[in-house]
């Protein structure tokens, strides 16, 4: 609860700073004990997945921190706490993960990250209780074929005919009482 309040306060301060201009920003930042920054320092934070169900792990990345930078992420709005963003596969992009609380209500939540260089990145996370469910209709049957094998049918018919002839011959011999 305290963390959430702190986050809201920080966000409010940042917003106020954004409107007040660079000079006031530097003053406000100094008061907050944060590094100075200008209004243009708000950078986008990429959030994946675009819509998360409660309980899933979310990955965020941003190029706001510069080459080999790092950042502290804030996902307290969704019960994900604070997390580290470190250079990932590309040096200019920092990336980090957090888990969305299992009992979170659907809605749009703000996720933030503060770079070591003082820049701030934020992005929206849409939390939804609607994910894929049930089976997938990925076929109509055009790949199934009912094959007929004329060779098999002919062979089978010939065999049955031979059986009929042989059977008749056998019965006749027994009826006429012939013994070999």
């Amino acid at each position, binding site marked *: 609860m305290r963390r959430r309040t702190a986050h809201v306060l920080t966000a409010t301060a940042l917003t106020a700073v954004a409107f007040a201009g660079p000079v006031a920003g530097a003053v406000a930042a100094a008061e907050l004990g944060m590094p100075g920054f200008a209004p243009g320092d708000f950078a986008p934070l*990429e*959030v*994946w*997945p*675009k*819509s998360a*169900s409660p*309980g*899933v*792990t*979310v*990955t*965020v*990345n941003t190029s706001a921190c510069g080459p080999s930078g790092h950042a502290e992420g804030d996902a307290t709005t969704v019960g994900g706490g604070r997390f580290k963003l470190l250079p*990932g*596969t*590309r040096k200019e*992009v920092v*990336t980090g*993960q957090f888990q969305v609380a299992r009992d979170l209500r659907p809605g749009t939540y703000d996720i933030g990250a503060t770079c070591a260089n003082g820049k701030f990145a934020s992005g929206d996370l849409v939390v*939804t209780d*609607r*994910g*894929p*469910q*049930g*089976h*997938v*209709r*990925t*076929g*109509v*049957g*055009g*790949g*199934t*074929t*009912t*094959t*007929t*094998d*004329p*060779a*098999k*049918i002919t*062979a*089978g*018919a*010939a*065999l*049955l005919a*031979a*059986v009929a002839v*042989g*059977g008749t011959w*056998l019965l006749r*011999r*027994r009826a006429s009482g012939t*013994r*070999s």
Partner: protein
Amino acid sequence: MVGTSGVAGRGGLLALAACVGIWLVGSGSGERVGPPLPSPAEALSALSGQASYAGSIAPLPGSPPTRIRIPSIRVDAPLTGLGLQADGSLEVPPPGRRDLAGWYRDGTTPGAIGTAVIAGHVDHATGPAVFYHLGALRRGATIEVARADGRTAVFTVHAVEVYDAKAFPDSRVYGPSPRAELRVITCGGGFSPRTGYEGNVVVFAHLTGTY
């Protein structure tokens, strides 16, 4: 005595020949050939899950996938984004293109932590489609997913299952995962001309490499 047994022997031979003849005619006149189904040996088990955890590697950041490649069944297909239908089921790629597969665009991106979902048709009205041979995959097979950021996520199959449409295990297939996993889904599990495919073939894989 010899004669009687000879007659009985010939009778048996005729009966056997009759059976073979009936079988030949029967099987020759109506054999339904469909897409391959996985053997029970490829099923999900506690062991397959554990063994694969050991091979987990660092996940990739989020980036949408662009192509799926499954060398062992000669799949190399572009990916389109899929949403959800009104009933909550996953959309399917447009039926016009038989070489196209899709990924659940609101979900985890393949290579990132979580469960990414890819689906494709097993067939179309006129013949096999992109995932026709999915049911023939075995444990250990490789699935590669190329992404928009230029990276490729390499997954290793740890199970291939068939689920009945009436009892589809949502949480097992779509549920969250603490590591980077992938599901590849197509239709399967028997076909009836009246009701269509009875279920889905689902391939379970986990991240084992990136480049």
